[in-house]
């Protein structure tokens, strides 16, 4: 692929109903780049992630993924470049390994295949007990669910990973494990929403919602 940015956002306004969360937001993310996005609560960070996934309607000419404009039509294709782990994720009902395997049945993922070994390795990296694979999703704790959801996202090997407070529910040790693993991913660009200083340290860039908006907010270093 060429060196066009994996994600480019131009002049994007974020609305929640009739309330404006952010205005004229700009952000560019290069392939493999790790960026942590912070900002006040209610500044529209999660809304921004939802817009990048096309879960909220996106105005024309504002979001580009791998150089292609995100529209109601292209979003179905462009979602295949992106994986997303939401805050307090819910990724389905049933046995963990079945849930992890389910996306590989989708038509768009036919080129991929589910490798149980890979899931086991990721679990080990994230300090999840190996028998978690056989457990029912319902019995997992919040922190375990979070790491299973992260595993599900990573197994799909997308070029862009969107993370919403992904380390928030984790204990200190698993936090470190998750951060170290994410930082080591060479070919995956990450946009991670977080309030946690620990997450800032491992990413190459730190952005504040307020600074990404034209004419709004004060510059920070």
């Amino acid at each position, binding site marked *: 692929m060429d060196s066009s940015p994996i994600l480019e956002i131009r002049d994007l306004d974020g609305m929640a109903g009739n309330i404006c969360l952010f205005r004229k937001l700009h952000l560019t993310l290069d392939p493999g780049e790790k960026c942590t996005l912070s900002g006040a609560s209610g500044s529209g960070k999660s809304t921004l992630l*939802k817009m990048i996934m096309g*879960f909220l309607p996106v105005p024309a000419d504002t979001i580009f993924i791998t150089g292609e404009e995100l529209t109601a039509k292209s979003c179905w294709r462009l979602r295949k470049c992106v994986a*997303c782990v939401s805050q307090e994720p819910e*990724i389905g009902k049933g046995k963990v390994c079945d849930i992890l395997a*389910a996306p590989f049945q989708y038509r768009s993922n036919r080129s991929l295949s589910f490798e149980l070994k890979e899931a086991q390795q990721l679990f080990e990296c994230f300090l999840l007990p190996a028998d978690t694979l056989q457990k029912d999703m319902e019995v997992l704790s919040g922190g375990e669910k979070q790491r299973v959801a992260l595993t599900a996202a990573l197994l799909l090997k997308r070029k862009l990973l969107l993370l919403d407070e992904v380390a928030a529910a984790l204990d200190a040790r698993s936090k470190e494990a998750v951060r170290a693993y994410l930082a080591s991913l060479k070919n995956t660009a990450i946009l991670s929403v977080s309030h946690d200083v620990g997450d800032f340290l491992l990413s190459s860039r730190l952005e504040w919602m307020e600074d990404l908006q034209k004419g709004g907010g004060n510059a920070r270093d």
Partner: protein
Amino acid sequence: MPVTDIDVVRLAAGYGLLLIPLGIFLWHRVPLIGTTLVSIVRMTVQLLFIGFYLQILFDLNNIWLNIMWLAVMIAVADASILRGCDLNFRIFAIPVFVALLLGILLPVFIFLSVILYPAPALDARFLVPIFGMVLGNSLRAVIVGLQHFYDALRRREKEYFFFLSAGAGRQEALMPFLKETLQVSMAPTLANMATMGLVALPGMMTGVMIGGISPAAAIKYQIAIMIAILSGTSLAATLAVYFSLRKSLTPWGSLNRSVFTRLNQ
């Protein structure tokens, strides 16, 4: 046929039985007296009207009049379904109407033209009651189905979004919800079928037996109507969800918030 018509005076005396529920409510001070009286009056007036109207329908036996009457039945069913599940009338009225029309008409048509053969299938006295029975029995499944599906999609939006973000197409992402919806909406019909004849003697069978038909023949009617009800119910409930998707989901795949009448997001 030796069918005994009920004498009007004796039926009026039958209303005396209503002293039992009214007495019980009065004794326990259950605030149901008004509701009960209104229900009794409504039942009586509606049935009087239907009895009178069906008589005309049967006498005229005009195919267009029959079709119009079916349309009225569907429209009333449509409205009562949407009232039953707090869904936006403007989005759902037409899809649910079409779903009921196709979903009920298909099994009823098979019932009349194949099973009841050589009875004249489009005769009012076959078409209207059979259609009404299948329609009436499918209502609850359609209500439960629509309600469950859209509630689940709203409450478990994260799960749905996860499927989409994992590369699922619309149909693929909705599949777990559709599967669950059918399980929930079909359960009562299936349970009812499984206890058929043991717990309660079904209405159709009772009806034809009072009409003078032997139990051996009556069960054949009952089996046929149960098959028609089960297929009509599953078809109508499934089509109602599918037909409503076009307007209830945005082109991006997310749930249109105006689907619900009460915005308790």
